[in-house]
């Protein structure tokens, strides 16, 4: 009762609701949501293929970008590439888990 009627809590609640409404009315967020909705509307296999394609592009681009950087300031590129690939593959498996 005390907490629910606290002015500080009401202040935080009001601020969070404003942030939520800002996010809900944002066009960029709406576009992202629409894209996500469209993506999840795809068949699972299609979703998985998209993930894998994005992963391949990401790994190849990463290898290209990383090779342009000084070796002492970058990761071990093959190992980091494998990790990025693993994350992508995990994402590719998500549609089937859902």
């Amino acid at each position: 009762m005390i907490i629910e009627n606290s002015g500080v809590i009401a202040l935080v609640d009001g601020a969070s609701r404003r942030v939520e409404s800002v996010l809900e009315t944002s066009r960029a967020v709406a576009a992202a949501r629409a894209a996500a909705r469209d993506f999840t509307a795809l068949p699972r296999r299609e979703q998985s293929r998209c993930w894998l394609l994005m992963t391949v592009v990401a790994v190849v681009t990463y290898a290209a970008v990383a090779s342009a950087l000084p070796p002492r300031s970058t990761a071990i590129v093959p190992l980091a590439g494998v990790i990025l690939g693993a994350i992508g593959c995990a994402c590719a498996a998500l549609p089937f888990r859902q």
Partner: protein
Amino acid sequence: MAAGAAIATIYALTPLTVCVVAAAAVVLPLFWAGLSPGDRRWLIIIVCAAIIARVLIVGGIFLRNIQVHDDQFVGAASGDEAYAMSRALRTRDIVRGWPTAKYDYFIAYDEYGRSSFIAALTALQLIFGPTPYSLRLLNALLYMCGALLLFRVAYRAFRRVTAFGGLLVVLFWPSLFAWSISLLKEPLYFLCGAVAVTCAVTIGADRRWRVRAVCVAATLVALATMRDMRPAALVLAVGGLATGVVLFIVTASKRTALVAVTAAIGAVVMLSLVPPLQRRVVAGVEAAAKVQMGHVFTVGHAYKLLDAGFYVKPVTPAASSLKLRADEAARFVVRGLLSFILVPLPWQVQSARELVYLPEQLAWYALVVLLPLGAWVALGRGRLAACMLMGYAAPTAVVLALTNGNVGTLLRLRGLVIPFVAWLSAAGLDALMERSKRLVDERGRVFGRVNLFDATLVAFAIALVPIAYGTYLLFRTPALRIESVQRVPITREERRVAGGSTLTAKLKVRGTGLRPMLRAMIDDAPALGFVFEDPHSADVLVGEVPAGAHDLILFDGVQEVARARRAVTIQSEPSPQMLALGVFSRLDEGTARSISATRVSSSLEIVKVGPQRPDANGRWLREAEMRVQCEPDAAGEGCVVGGVLLNAPRPPTLQLVLPSGQVVSFTVNELLPNTPAQFVTARVRLASAPEPLTLVRVGDRDDVLDERAATVVAVGSRRMTDVDVTIRAGLDQSRDGRVYRGRAFKAGAPFRLSTDRYVLEGVVLEVDERRQDDSK
């Protein structure tokens, strides 16, 4: 494809950040699964606020360092962070085969600081490159996972208000917040502890064996990870879990609680009645006290738990031979436990950083005040969770309380306990608000005006903080300030107390806040003593210090507390040399024979020795003349060598080490100036009974080894009661005219001729004023 390229670019720049974000996206939603929509919303708000605050701070650190970034590493906010990161990067250079130095190998394979955190840090640097900022994000994620694990425990056991209150404390407590985004091991250590507690509660509450097996495995992994992250970390963690289990058993019923209380009283009685048991306990306390003393003698703001006299000499724990009586040990334990709660009291704050910490210290007091009620309420709501939280924190708190002596370290390490007791204190606040319903209306307002929760926050911000600052201003230890340093005469007592050490000067220090247990240094040289008189006055006895102007520095332990710049001036003019005439005594025959004219030390040289003679005790004597270099003596008391005043009325004795290594005593009977004597002839009338007068012959020599010795060169007319003789003697110039062996030598002055056959008194009749330069 564009998304893939964007991710790849970000990944190339900061690969670990991408991994942390992916991990957070998978892990964090697990913590709000199963909550009611309202609670889920609030949890997401709190977690998002915690993440945003941390990301902003890490981003701020990045922007602040942006001008000094290179391909290696910047961004460490403390020495520990810099050490951990540089060690990991040195290891990375070695493993990758890049150019290294011998020092890199030394650091990389050093036993000091080796822990599972360093291993993990090294692995991350090896794989992902220098990652000072994304590692902060990873640490933040680990810390938040620990906090959310305990949130779920509290949510199930103690109700939602307590869980959310505890979570707010753990996520936004200022020092814990700073920890959570550091490059240090603390977040991982906290996560391991949270896993252990969560698993222990789950094992007790969940009847499914599969879940229990997973929890046991997770606990073992957590314990294995944390085992080398702190000294005795495994003992503390396992001891904490065991304490929790014991508490759970003890609090099962009134009967078990009664048995436990009776057993505790019995243990205390046994401890006081059985000496061997008492000795073992005191030995354990002594070990803790040695570590605590070591902390006191570190740079920083120290606090003392033993009686003040134990902190006079800085000593390391390994070299300490500390022995405590039972009452001293008991006082140490009581002070230690109180200090864990109270230090630093608002008026003990010494630095700006501690002053900034003061509001958090007040909040800590609030947590402590709420803790007993919270623990009681939590035991009623979720006994197992309450016992495990209390039990896990207790051993760590006790060890920290008894081994710590530095305020900064205590504040940092108290953070090991706060995340576990915060939930209990939050339960106390929850219960307090629930029980205060009589005071508040249906909208939670006190006197129909202010919401109680808001009033508490406002009271804390408006009332308590100024009160604390007020008490700090009122009761703080007065700052030690040196107002004047003045050179004063050294007393004979201080010469004696110097115990053979060179005592160059005595300084009278006047100022404010002087304390008995201070140490004084003259630049890098420790003073012989700091003699406290009152808070405004003290003496400093200065030992051997090179000539020149020096700073006088006062230390409390190893902490510099005051400095008077160039306040001590040691003159560079050489101190005088003297000839000391005396006798080596209590010698064996071989040693007596071996003494010869030689340099004994930088300040002592034997210039002449007489024949060796046996004494009455069957030992041997040998007279000698020594040239001595007197020590600087601003007081003008005379010649001091090795702290011994040679002009003393009682014949002083010097302890010397001969070149052969033997230690011998030399009693100084007479001092002469080390300047060329002026030789004169003089007529002297010696008076006595007739018989001794007949013994006087030409060639008789005064019984002194020095060349100044008066020698009879002619014997004149003899009468019944006197005889006139002509002597040749070496005189020294003094303020009062010429002197022979320290006595005035002029017509009419008394004269004494002492040989090995007679002693005669007389008077100088006439001095030949023609100077005789030939000393022979």
